[in-house]
């Protein structure tokens, strides 16, 4: 048998209520593999509340706190304080929230948690819209994407605003560790989770999480789409440890973004000019990332 490249143990139960091919469901499964059983997860209102905890069931073998959508950052500060008061120093406290609950509604609570230097991991699973309530645009929805609140028609071309740079906002708080992760690269994903687990202080994980019904693609393509997102530069994989940025998945030549966009119904309306505009932005961002990595240099031995 080929050697397992990620932990064998499962801390997420089957039978959960995620759609077939759900990226966020795989994200939770991989996250818990890396974190193990001594973990408490705080979940705000989002798809994962419905996926994981319809009363009286739970899809997690670890403790779960359901909390309000604004409150993930505050709730993990509170959980950390409670765990410390009980002498549970070995427990990892994790917030697991959607992009709407992170980039928009819970942004101040996230900022507060980072600034307080809470010893916890905040994981944002980014399915790029408010999916649980039926695909409304969020601050993290990319430019040009169709959602039910950024329609496509004679007078509208999908989302007119660019995607919010959540990693940029988080990095401005100088966290101990911040990284981008994708379930399409499970080994890189697991390494980052285990690295984060071993650190103390505020840590942030930005997880790419394709949503078949929301992005309108075949559920079998979840993994392939995640790979394309990284290979086109749409979702580069990198980490920032002690302020030093390192790209963890080197891409020598970016594939054209159309390879990624063409697979999804939410981008079907885009014209060649609009695709070129996205391409130009992706390449600019990628060059900036490479420049920052060069500037930061390798970690001191």
């Amino acid at each position, binding site marked *: *048998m080929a050697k397992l490249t990620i932990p064998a143990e499962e801390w997420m139960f089957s*039978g959960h*209520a*995620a759609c077939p091919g759900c990226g966020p469901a795989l994200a939770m499964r991989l996250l818990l593999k890396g974190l193990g059983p001594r973990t408490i997860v705080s979940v705000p209102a989002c798809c994962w509340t419905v996926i994981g905890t319809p009363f009286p069931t739970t899809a997690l073998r670890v403790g779960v706190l359901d909390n309000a959508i604004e409150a993930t950052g505050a709730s993990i500060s509170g959980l950390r304080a409670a765990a410390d008061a009980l002498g549970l120093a070995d427990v990892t406290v994790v917030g697991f929230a959607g992009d709407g609950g992170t980039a928009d509604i819970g942004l101040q609570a996230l900022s507060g948690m980072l600034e307080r230097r809470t010893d916890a991991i905040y994981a944002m699973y980014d399915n790029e819209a408010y999916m649980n309530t039926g695909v409304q645009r969020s601050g993290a929805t990319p430019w040009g994407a169709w959602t039910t609140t950024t329609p496509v028609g004679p007078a509208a071309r999908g989302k007119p605003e660019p995607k919010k740079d959540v990693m940029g906002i988080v990095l401005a708080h100088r966290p101990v560790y911040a990284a981008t992760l994708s379930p399409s690269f499970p080994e890189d994903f697991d390494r980052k989770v285990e690295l984060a687990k071993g650190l103390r202080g505020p840590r942030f994980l930005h997880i790419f999480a394709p949503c078949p019904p929301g992005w309108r693609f075949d559920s*079998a393509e979840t993994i392939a789409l995640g790979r394309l997102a990284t290979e086109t530069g749409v979702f580069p994989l990198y980490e920032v440890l002690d302020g030093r940025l390192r790209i963890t998945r080197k891409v020598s030549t970016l594939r054209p973004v159309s390879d990624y966009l063409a697979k999804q119904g939410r981008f079907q309306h885009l014209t060649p000019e609009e695709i070129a505009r996205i391409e130009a932005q992706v390449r600019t961002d990628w060059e900036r990332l490479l420049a920052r990595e060069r500037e930061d240099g390798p970690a001191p031995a």
Partner: protein
Amino acid sequence: MLEIRFHGRGGQGAVVASELLAQAAFLDGKMPQSFPFFGVERRGAPVTAFARIDDRPIRVRTSVTEPDVVVVLDPGLLATTPVSEGLRPGGLLLVNTRTAAEALAGPVGIRRATVDATRIALARGLGTSMMPIVNTAVLGALSRASGAVSPEALDRAIAAFVPARPDANRDAARDGYLQVRAAPAREGPSAAPAHPRPPPVPIPEGPIAFLSSESTPTAAWRTFTPVIHRERCTRCNFCWKFCPDDAIELGADGFPRLRAAFCKGCGICAAECPPKTIEMVAEA
């Protein structure tokens, strides 16, 4: 008043079916009502929707618990959901299935009808083979088997309210109308009285959620099942690694095995298997 309950799975269009039915009834000059059950509407998950049709304004606003007609968009639900619960004597059970109406195990005293709406939908190019959209074909069958709405009104409702491929949907409804087959009610001692409601789940002290989600299998969600052909399997375990439902386990011999109770049929394992040794096979 005619009360109708739809059972489908998320993505098949059960909610839209109840809306279209109400629109068609309105075009027939009736006073309809339509609304879904508010629950988990995940693609593949069981979904319930309701419709009422009357000549007078309808005041009642509650779920339909004693329907005159039950419409089942997915035959797999017959095994997992008590679809005929509360059906009134003399009522109608309409199922999308390849099975003949006579062979349908409906309750005593209930008329039965069947239509192969999946085949119609696929022939008309509606939805994908993984998830055919069967609602308009089923509505055509419903129009004929129940007389709830006229086929003309259904044609017009589809033209006016179906945004994608209205022509193919209208043709599917006409196919359904022509192809539906009915059977008389089964005879025998009448069925037991309405199902007693299960008692409320007691809330224990301590953690609120006390059942694992593995107490709620999701096998009924899927349309296609992965079949793993061992001969070509290299035991790379990619299928295990990428399954969002942890529905593949690795045996001591290293070969993957399907945990069929929990597979939703997303197709990821088949797509990611490097030697392409997993085949997605349509559920019977």
